[in-house]
């Protein structure tokens, strides 16, 4: 009887220590995820090979944006405990498992019996402080978008609608076929809805994530991109995909084995797509085209459009994907980080940052202009 009790007790103790470990692991992962999103960000300017500038933009920056930036930057101070509290969380969790590190060889040795309680108390306090800083950072980011980013968008075109909290609807992402369906949740922000002449378009940032697991409590980021879609000026029935030419030996071998066919699943039916070989060698060196209809693919990809796509591609270091489906053109520019977030350290009062943002939003105009989407000389008006 007593033996049984003893076993039960140890099992309970083990399971409680396991759930404790889980909580710690979850808190650390949660903190690390946000820390990575906020602090470890590269400049969005890295995706560009070349940028466009508008002389009026500098005037806008000096006259209108600078005073606002100074005001908004003050809000960031409330998030200043983000890095220190994160470091304290890490240190506390290490010390919790090796309390001797601090408590045996220091003036605090007399606290050793209460070590764990003290550490838990410190951990909880700083976790709350950390959460507070994260919330404050996001509040600052939201304000920055509301005031600064919105102004840049309306500088490009006052008729465009900008909403920093929304994203392109999932049905468009699904019908584009550009993003793999293996995600469990999707997020995104910085939606723009607009119309240039006859062509209406939408764009936003999109991130897909895998489901949460014990080892990754926050899930894993699968694909992050700047997503754009617009009404296309020609009518077509099939699906055509343009993806970057595989670089690297292994990928090339994969392509060789995979052959010249690919398939997509649309409305629960599998469509087979064939490789389309086009006559522009430069285009072929950058992209691979797959389509359900060889003639239609060439109807869409005229020599002029191919040249334009090459021109667009050359402006970016990152991979770029296109698809034509239904009545629309879809585009995904792959990125490694959030594109429209204000920086966490360093001054936000920088013309360079504003210029990068301007260039990202300018993409909407660039695509429509380069692809001549406003040329409506075919049956589709």
């Amino acid at each position, binding site marked *: 009887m007593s033996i049984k009790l003893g076993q039960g007790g140890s099992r309970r103790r083990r399971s409680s220590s396991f759930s404790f470990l889980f909580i710690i692991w979850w808190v650390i992962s949660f903190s690390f995820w946000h820390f990575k999103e906020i602090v470890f960000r590269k400049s969005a300017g890295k995706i560009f090979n070349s940028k466009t500038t508008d002389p009026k933009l500098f005037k806008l920056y000096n006259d209108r944006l600078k005073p606002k930036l100074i005001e908004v930057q003050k809000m960031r101070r409330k998030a200043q405990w983000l890095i220190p509290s994160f470091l304290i969380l890490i240190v506390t969790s290490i010390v919790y498992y090796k309390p001797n590190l601090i408590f045996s060889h220091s003036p605090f040795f007399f606290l050793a019996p209460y070590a764990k309680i003290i550490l838990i108390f410190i951990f909880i306090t700083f976790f709350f402080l950390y959460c507070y800083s994260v919330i404050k950072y996001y509040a600052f980011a939201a304000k920055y978008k509301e005031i600064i980013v919105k102004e840049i968008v309306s500088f490009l075109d006052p008729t465009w609608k900008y909403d920093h909290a929304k994203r392109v609807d999932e049905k468009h992402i699904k019908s584009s076929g550009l993003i793999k369906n293996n995600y469990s949740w999707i997020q995104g922000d910085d939606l723009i809805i607009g119309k240039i002449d006859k062509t209406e378009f939408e764009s936003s940032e999109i991130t897909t994530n895998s489901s949460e697991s014990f080892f990754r409590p926050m899930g894993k980021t699968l694909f992050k991109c700047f997503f754009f879609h617009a009404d296309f000026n020609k009518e077509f029935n099939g699906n055509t995909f343009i993806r970057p030419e595989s670089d690297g030996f292994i990928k090339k071998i994969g392509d060789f084995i995979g052959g010249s066919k690919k398939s997509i699943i649309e409305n629960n039916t599998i469509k087979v797509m064939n490789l389309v070989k*086009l006559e522009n060698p430069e285009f072929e060196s950058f992209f691979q085209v797959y389509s359900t209809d060889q003639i239609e693919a060439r*109807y869409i990809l005229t020599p002029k459009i191919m040249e334009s796509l090459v021109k667009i591609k050359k402006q970016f270091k990152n991979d770029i994907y296109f698809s034509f489906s239904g009545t629309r053109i879809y585009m995904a520019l792959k990125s490694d980080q959030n594109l429209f977030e204000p920086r966490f350290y360093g001054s936000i009062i920088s013309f360079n940052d504003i210029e990068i943002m301007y260039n990202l939003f300018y993409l909407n105009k660039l695509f429509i202009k380069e692809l001549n989407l406003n040329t409506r*000389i075919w049956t589709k008006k």
Partner: protein
Amino acid sequence: MDNSIIILIAIISIITIYLIVIYNRLQKIKFEVENAFGGMDVQLKKRYDLIPNLVQTVKNYLKHEKDLLTQITELRTQVTSKDLSDNEKVKLDNKISSTMGNIMVAVENYPNLKANESFEMLQRSLNEVESQISAARRTFNSVITDYNTSIKVFPQNLIANAMKLTLKDVFEIPEEQRKNININNLFKN
């Protein structure tokens, strides 16, 4: 069984499989060529169907260019009534393209016609068909290039010879069609 016989059988089966694979590949490419020509034919037929419409819409305006209209109607009758060889068809189609081009140039002198709604619709359909034809031609050329390469490389050329496959010509795009469409002129009212 003797080892050498096994090896011999293995070699013969490998060669047979290889021959079957090549034969099938060539058959497939041959079929693709026919298919691509068919695809082009479909688009050309669409253009023939538009010709009577075009003549009907412009005849009241283009009084001085009656010849052009008679010419295009004749060409259409020729191309649709008789059983023509591929080469003859191509020649006639090129003629149709250039005559149509001339009609469109003539239209430039009649602003009233250009403003006409049904003419605008017709012009859109023509642009559509022209783009489709050019896409179909490019598809055809790409398939032909593939076909020509396949029947010329060793050892496929041996089997291609046995199958009596000969080189085929790619489409020559007439000079006037290579010019870019001047979009500004198209819808200037």
